[in-house]
């Protein structure tokens, strides 16, 4: 269970999150949709503490971190949260100086301190899972965008996180390459990987998600099932936004 309670975040005078509550059950996928600037990315980055909320409670399984005032999380909390989350970025952010396999096993070697042969074995299994067994020795610069993002997904899964955080994983890809990534994420969802996915891609939200949250103005404006929220939204604002996504 991942639970966010009253998460608030500001960047100086700009308040980006006004107390977000969200609950994600183990083995389910939550899609975050909403306009740019609505707080989707910031919310995801608060879950793995790339951003520090100014208030609220973050619960990841047994781990809970409370944010109050300007008190930073302890080192132990920070690393515990990071070890239990994986993140996929819009712009991939693969390590350019490491091969596909090297990217996937980097955390296993440095964070989990696995011996190299064990890490490589796990890394190869993950590359196979995202359909890239034949590319283990390729550098990111030699891969297509879709392949890079699939390597990034394998890298994010390597530490066996409680939740996979995907920040617009298909937004930098053309529709064909995006489909590769949607297919991989959908397959992972079917395997029971817990995910929170910020996306503008209705295929991804529709196919993989078990709940969809519409984030607008730093709040969860509407929460529902994919068919309900995307098919028959309650709020006019949601309806407008979803109709834009459908194009």
């Amino acid at each position: 269970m991942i639970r966010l309670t009253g998460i608030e975040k500001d960047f100086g005078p700009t308040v980006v999150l006004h107390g977000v509550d969200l609950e994600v059950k183990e083995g389910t996928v939550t899609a975050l949709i909403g306009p740019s600037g609505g707080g989707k990315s910031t919310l995801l980055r608060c879950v793995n503490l790339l951003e520090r909320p100014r208030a609220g409670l973050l619960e990841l399984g047994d781990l809970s971190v409370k944010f109050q005032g300007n008190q930073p999380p302890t080192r132990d909390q920070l690393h515990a949260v990071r070890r239990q989350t994986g993140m996929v970025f819009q712009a991939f952010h693969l390590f350019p100086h490491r091969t596909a396999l090297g990217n996937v096993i980097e955390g296993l070697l440095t964070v989990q301190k696995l011996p190299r042969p064990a890490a490589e074995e796990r890394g190869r299994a993950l590359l196979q899972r995202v359909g890239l067994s034949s590319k283990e020795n390729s550098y990111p610069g030699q891969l297509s965008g879709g392949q890079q993002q699939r390597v990034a997904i394998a890298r994010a899964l390597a530490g066996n996180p409680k939740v996979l955080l995907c920040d617009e994983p298909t937004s930098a890809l053309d529709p064909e390459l995006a489909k590769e990534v949607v297919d991989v994420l959908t397959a992972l969802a079917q395997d029971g990987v817990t995910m929170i996915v910020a996306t503008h891609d209705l295929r991804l939200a529709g196919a993989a998600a078990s709940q969809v949250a519409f984030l607008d103005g730093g709040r969860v404006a509407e929460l529902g099932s994919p068919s309900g929220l995307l098919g028959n939204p309650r709020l006019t604002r949601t309806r407008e936004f979803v109709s834009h996504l459908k194009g």
Partner: protein
Amino acid sequence: MPRWLEILRDAFVPLVAAGAAFTIPLALLSFVLGLALGLVTALGRAFGPPPMSALARFYVWVIRGTPLLVQLFLIFYGLPAVGIVIDAFPAALIGFSLNMGAYTSEIIRAAIASIPQGQWEASFSVGMTWTQALGRTILPQAARVATPPLANSFIALVKDTSLAAAITVTELFQTAQRIAAANYEPLLLYSEAAIIYLAFCSLLSAAQSRLETRLGRHLNPLEVVR
């Protein structure tokens, strides 16, 4: 054999011996120490608390703003006045290392800053600590960016070691001066010294190319379509 060739031949062994005994060790040691000092200074300036950052800035400001020859004179001829007596070679080593540290710190700082923020975030997202992110993700990529300007500094240093002649280090250039003073052939001797410096710097340039290829093996060659 013509006389000029004999002069060059007779001077060759002492010149190369002085280079091997003083010039090359001085350049190599100063570069290694200076690089370490430069890394610490760059990290202190970029990431340290305000006092450390200010100290780093002050050090770079003083070293870059004063002539290297003056620094060497201060260390070797000046410090004995306050009871600190340092032999010529270690004095030169200290001077050159301090100098290298200041210049290379700026190169390293710029190279670290050139690595996109996303690389830090990706490192943190797989669970790395700040130190691991720096050591495994940022510095290996920064090293490639820094190699050409660092090679520049190293080559400049090799030539600057000739200034150590002024504080009595019997390196290559001082040896040439001595021989020229005895045989009155400054044109020949200084030409020969210049050629030996040139040969050594050429070796370094070749080493730089190989290092760049090695550090950049994940990249296409640095070529731009015209």
